[in-house]
């Protein structure tokens, strides 16, 4: 730790109440949908009801005649100015990436795709007129089931894009033997089949919907010299670049503003058709236009997350020491390769080995196009899927060996003396202490007492059984080193920018390229600046989310804002201090060498003379008396590109009660100890953890995007898509251990995704643990009462598996030492 600890840190580590809250709790907010401009027109979208169809004809006349309709446009009415929706991460050079028009004129590829847009004087009139647009479709076979889609080709099966001749988009492979980071996994598996243990499983990562509370909204004002877009987005800077790159407008003529943004969770990390269409319409009609989606449109057409089949083989010696892990993923892209697209499962590639010392590892991911809503980042993006798989497998291995699941983890994890540790997937973990977090969590949880209660309930055949679930997770976050992103063929870097402006009155404006949407950057960043610059917390203003103010940035996702953006901030502040130093020396008539800077004040060693940084800012503003040749400004910028990701970790423990007669599950207790390095604001950190936990728990127990046989999203409203409520959830016990990151000055690690990554396997492990003695070794997510009941009542087979394939194993069961390898996923039969 550097300079921060040389001065008293009065702000960092303090549970400051948030600066943001005064406005938010009094309703003085600037959501995009709140913005009203003179002459503003409103849009309504006409969407395809079919998952896959050619557009035979579009009749816009009746809609055009409707009251107060200005115009109605279909894809055919636009040319190149409509632009395209981009994929920024082609994961392989030969990735099949179908051209993605925001509003196609020939063929629709999922139920919900936009085919026409109505422009009217009010939103209600636009929606009324949208009903009058008459589109004739010729239905095509739709590729819906992920496994069937992966198997389809020109000889049979539905193709999402028939002209591609396949639904396979890209195959991405990492093999530790080939990469030189480990041994050959096939050899490890062969060896384990002869006297060791082989665990073979297939797990389903169901499709989820980010379901941020603020529906997406976009306003475009074409009446200024710069075209201005307000959007409910996480990525104003990336949007600006993408608009320039695809719509023929000079980047310097584009201003993008993310005003108050009501949650994102990755769901607003997208360049959307709706934004592109609104942009094109505003340019066409020359007036400000607004589009705000309904919740149904949001659930239908804002990108979804997860949606994978995971085929897994874990090899171990008979004592439970893992010797190899092989992972084959099928990942559903939906109907196009969206912004990050196939990069999401690839982000998980480095995390299946988690906190463990696996000698051999192979990962492959086949991305597949289907006629469903496109998938992309959702909180954790690739890492929850990986963590789920390995943490479930470690429990299965423990069951096979016949030891407590924590013992298996201890046998395999990296010990704290071994850091920095280079993993089998080639990442260098800089710091961590899994033993310490685990010890603390187990004590808080009362692990041994709960195990004793579990035994009592089993022994007495209690109707309600108790299960304990463990998740000792880590993640890679803080996206990201630009060189690494480049080596993975990502289309941009991972740096972040910050600027510090010293105002004449001594107040400080801080510009950040991060773009908060609920995280509390204004508070946490103010704390960092206040400590480092020695100014009052209240005197710091954090400016963000407007490309005219924060002209450079790579925005907010991947738990990057503090660890990348915060470090840029530290460096910009340090530059301000260094620029002020010669001014202070000049004004104090002292040598620079005799000055020390502490708590916001330059003082001359051995004297009582000194000046505060604010006073120097005022003197520089006046510029009456500066050192010869000095530029009259203290303002400074810094752009930081990390050398490594960072690696938060934690031990999460969950106790679930399962009613074996009804299948109902009840969370009894949830304890987590997260090591996220040094903490800037414990209050904000706790909030991030709680929110992440519930999203991860919701994947385990409640949420799933469900399509019918026609490819219609049937969970397309909050009536059907089961977001948890306060009544469904409990209060959590959260604590921390601290292993500071070594790759940033403040020693911080990301926290935004941690809870969501860790909690899902903890919950499912607990549910399975509660009924394992009844012959159950898996229950497919979400673990609804029906699925739990079926699993309990049918033992290991647990019911139909949606045609689940035998994973790596042939019809003969592949020689694994389980009774029925592969038939592990348990989904209730359709009633």
């Amino acid at each position, binding site marked *: 730790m550097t300079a921060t600890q040389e001065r008293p840190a009065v702000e960092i580590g303090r549970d400051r109440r948030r600066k943001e809250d005064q406005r938010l709790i009094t309703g003085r907010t600037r*959501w995009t949908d709140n913005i009203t401009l003179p002459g503003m027109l409103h849009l309504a979208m006409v969407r395809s009801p079919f998952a896959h169809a050619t557009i035979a004809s579009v009749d816009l006349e009746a809609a055009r005649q409707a009251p107060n309709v200005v115009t109605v446009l279909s894809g055919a009415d636009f040319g190149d100015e409509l632009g395209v929706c981009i994929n920024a991460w082609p994961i392989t050079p030969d990735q099949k990436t179908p051209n993605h028009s925001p509003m196609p004129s020939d063929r629709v590829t999922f139920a919900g795709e936009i085919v026409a847009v109505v422009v009217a004087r009010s939103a209600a009139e636009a929606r009324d007129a949208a009903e009058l647009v008459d589109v004739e479709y010729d239905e095509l076979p739709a590729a819906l089931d992920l496994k069937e889609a992966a198997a389809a080709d020109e000889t049979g099966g539905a193709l999402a894009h028939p002209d591609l001749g396949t639904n396979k988009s890209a195959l991405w492979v990492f093999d530790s033997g080939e990469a030189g980071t480990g041994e050959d996994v096939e050899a490890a598996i062969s060896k384990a089949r002869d006297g060791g243990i082989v665990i073979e499983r297939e797990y389903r990562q169901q499709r989820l919907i980010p379901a941020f509370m603020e529906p997406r909204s976009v306003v475009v004002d074409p009446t200024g010299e710069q075209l201005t877009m307000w959007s409910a987005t996480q990525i104003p800077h990336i949007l600006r670049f993408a608009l320039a790159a695809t719509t023929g407008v000079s980047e310097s003529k584009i201003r993008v503003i993310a005003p108050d943004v009501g949650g994102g969770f990755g769901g607003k990390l997208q360049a959307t058709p709706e934004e592109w269409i609104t942009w094109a319409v505003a340019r066409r009609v020359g007036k400000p236009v607004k589009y705000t989606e309904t919740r149904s449109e949001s659930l239908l057409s804002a990108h979804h997350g997860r949606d994978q089949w995971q085929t897994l083989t874990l090899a171990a010696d008979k004592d439970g020491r893992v010797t190899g892990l092989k992972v084959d993923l099928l990942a559903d892209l939906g109907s196009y390769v969206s912004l990050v697209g196939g990069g999401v499962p690839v982000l998980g590639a480095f995390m299946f080995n988690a906190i463990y010392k696996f000698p051999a590892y192979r990962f492959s991911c086949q991305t597949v196009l289907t006629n469903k809503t496109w998938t992309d980042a959702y909180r954790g993006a690739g890492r929850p899927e990986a963590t789920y798989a390995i943490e479930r497998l470690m429990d299965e291995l423990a069951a096979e060996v016949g030891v407590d699941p924590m013992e298996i983890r201890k046998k395999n994890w990296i010990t704290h003396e071994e850091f920095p540790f280079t993993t089998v997937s080639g990442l260098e973990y800089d710091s961590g202490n899994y033993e310490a977090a685990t010890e603390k969590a187990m004590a808080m949880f009362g692990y041994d007492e709960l195990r004793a209660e579990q035994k009592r309930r089993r022994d007495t055949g209690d109707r309600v059984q108790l299960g304990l679930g463990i998740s000792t997770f880590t993640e890679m976050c803080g996206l990201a080193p630009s060189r690494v992103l480049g080596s993975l063929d990502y289309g941009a870097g991972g740096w972040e920018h910050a600027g510090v402006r010293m105002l004449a009155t001594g107040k400080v404006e801080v510009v950040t390229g991060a773009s908060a949407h609920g995280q509390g950057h204004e508070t946490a960043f103010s704390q960092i600046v206040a400590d480092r610059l020695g100014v009052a917390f209240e005197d710091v203003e954090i400016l963000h989310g407007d490309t005219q103010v924060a002209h450079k940035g790579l925005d907010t996702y991947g738990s990057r804002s503090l660890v990348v953006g915060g470090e840029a901030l530290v460096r910009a502040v340090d530059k301000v201090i260094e620029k002020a130093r010669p001014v202070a020396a000049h004004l104090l008539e002292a040598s620079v060498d005799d000055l020390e800077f502490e708590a916001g004040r330059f003082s001359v060693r051995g004297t009582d003379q000194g000046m505060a940084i604010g006073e120097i800012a005022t003197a520089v503003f006046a510029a009456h008396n500066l050192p010869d040749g000095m530029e009259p400004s203290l303002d400074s910028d810094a752009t930081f590109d990390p050398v490594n990701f960072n690696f938060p970790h934690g031990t999460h423990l969950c106790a679930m009660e399962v009613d074996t007669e009804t299948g109902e599950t009840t969370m009894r207790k949830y304890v987590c100890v997260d090591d996220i390095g040094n903490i800037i604001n414990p209050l904000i950190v706790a909030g*991030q953890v709680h929110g992440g936990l519930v999203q991860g728990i919701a994947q385990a127990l409640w949420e799933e995007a469900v399509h019918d046989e026609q490819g219609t999203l049937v969970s397309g409203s909050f009536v059907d898509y089961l*977001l948890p409520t306060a009544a469904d959830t409990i209060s959590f016990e959260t604590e921390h251990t601290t292993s500071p990151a070594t790759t940033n000055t403040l020693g911080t690690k990301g926290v935004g995704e941690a809870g969501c990554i860790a909690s899902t396997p903890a919950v499912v492990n607990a549910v399975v643990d509660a009924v394992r003695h009844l012959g159950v070794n898996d229950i497919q997510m979400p673990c609804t009462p029906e699925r739990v009941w079926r699993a309990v009542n049918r033992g290991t087979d647990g019911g139909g598996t949606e045609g689940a394939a035998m994973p790596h194993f042939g019809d003969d069961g592949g020689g694994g030492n389980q009774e029925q390898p592969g038939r592990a996923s348990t989904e209730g039969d359709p009633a």
Partner: protein
Amino acid sequence: MARITLTVDGAQVSDDVEPRMLLVQYLREKLGKTGTVVGCDTSNCGACTVHLDGRSVKSCNVLAVQADGHEVTTIEGVAGTVDGELHPVQEAFRECHGLQCGFCTPGMIMQSIDLLNDNPDPTEEEVRLGLEGNLCRCTGYHNIVKSVLHAARSQGVQA
């Protein structure tokens, strides 16, 4: 069009509205009361919760004409003044970090006030059940529940 006259946040307002106009649309579009927001189309999320004659209602589920002659209080009307003293429930949400993005917050606060009016000293379970009609995606509810319990305690002290 129908003529309606009502009191919103202490001020009398009068407008001609389409019979189909929802109360939330009236508040946002006609009155500029954009503190009240729309989060869904199915009255599940509760983001639009306001008080109608002192009781919480989801304003997406009430027609503007139904509010004719009644008194509506929104999030913008619960504090004494714009920058003045906060309502104890607002203060509790800030104190306990009961909000992150803040989109559900107006509805959560309005519902919480109603809940505490009914039951000034609720248990955690009662708070959780009382907020069942309001969705939040950021906080995991932990700190929202804590905020309401905190407000109950601080109101109890005042009383």
